């Protein structure tokens, strides 16, 4: 057993999304700390994975013990403004279906939150919704 590699967990989550959005219809996806200049009136997706609370799961010190690692993937879906929400929600459904209650390489996803409409899109000029995916994984020391 070994401490969890958070970078591997991040890559697992991001890789699944990248693979899905590389399939038709293809959509650009941008991750944390990556430069991206969106094309006006286009659709695109932003994915931000972060880790939060870590908890004791079992007894034991630095070996033979387990921790619970909780995180969230915040996925912003951008579609052209002024043409309704249908196209945006179609993309959001693709994302939602991709993670809904699944277990990928030991990362357990809860039922997704959203898509929630973001009142003030950032960047401006798009219709933006947000799908939030809480997840947990178990670290065996």
């Amino acid at each position, binding site marked *: 057993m070994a401490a969890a590699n958070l970078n591997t967990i991040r890559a697992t989550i991001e890789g699944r999304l990248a693979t899905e959005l590389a399939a038709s219809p293809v959509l650009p996806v941008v991750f944390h700390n990556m430069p991206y200049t969106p094309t006006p009136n286009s659709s695109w997706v932003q994915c931000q994975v972060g880790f939060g609370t870590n908890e004791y*799961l079992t007894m034991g010190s630095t070996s033979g013990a387990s921790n619970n690692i909780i995180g969230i993937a915040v996925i912003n879906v951008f579609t052209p403004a002024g043409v309704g929400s249908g196209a945006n929600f179609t993309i959001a459904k693709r994302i939602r279906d991709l993670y809904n209650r699944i277990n990928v390489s030991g990362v357990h996803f809860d039922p997704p939150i959203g898509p929630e409409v973001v009142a003030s899109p950032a960047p401006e000029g798009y219709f933006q919704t947000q799908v939030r995916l809480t997840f947990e994984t178990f670290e065996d020391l």
Partner: protein
Amino acid sequence: MAFYRGQEGSVKFDDAGTTAAAITSTRAWTLSVEKEALDTTTLGDTYRANIGGLISGSGTVELLYTASSADETNVFIERVNTANDDGTALFELYLYSTTKKITFDGVITSAEYSATVGEIEVITCNFVTNGAITLDI
């Protein structure tokens, strides 16, 4: 002065009563040791008098279900369903390290298996002691 936190504890068990092995994924344990008080008050006494009587113990072990079968864990969680339990199963409850422990033979009297949506599956086993309780704490 040293203080210790719960995660430094552990539980070992052996149904054969010889060499205890770790119960994996233990989340908590408790042991309550009780001594009966025998009333020796006599007529004319102003204050009630007591002496110590029989000592007994009971407690719980709470663990997370892992489908483990490579150690004593599976034996432990199924022990309650064993016929003709002679009470010689060895329990070792550790407060710290591999030396600060409470040792006794005992009987697992009940086990509660549970599964709840969105939560880790938990099993709680209750036990009573059989014979001497050794406190090396």
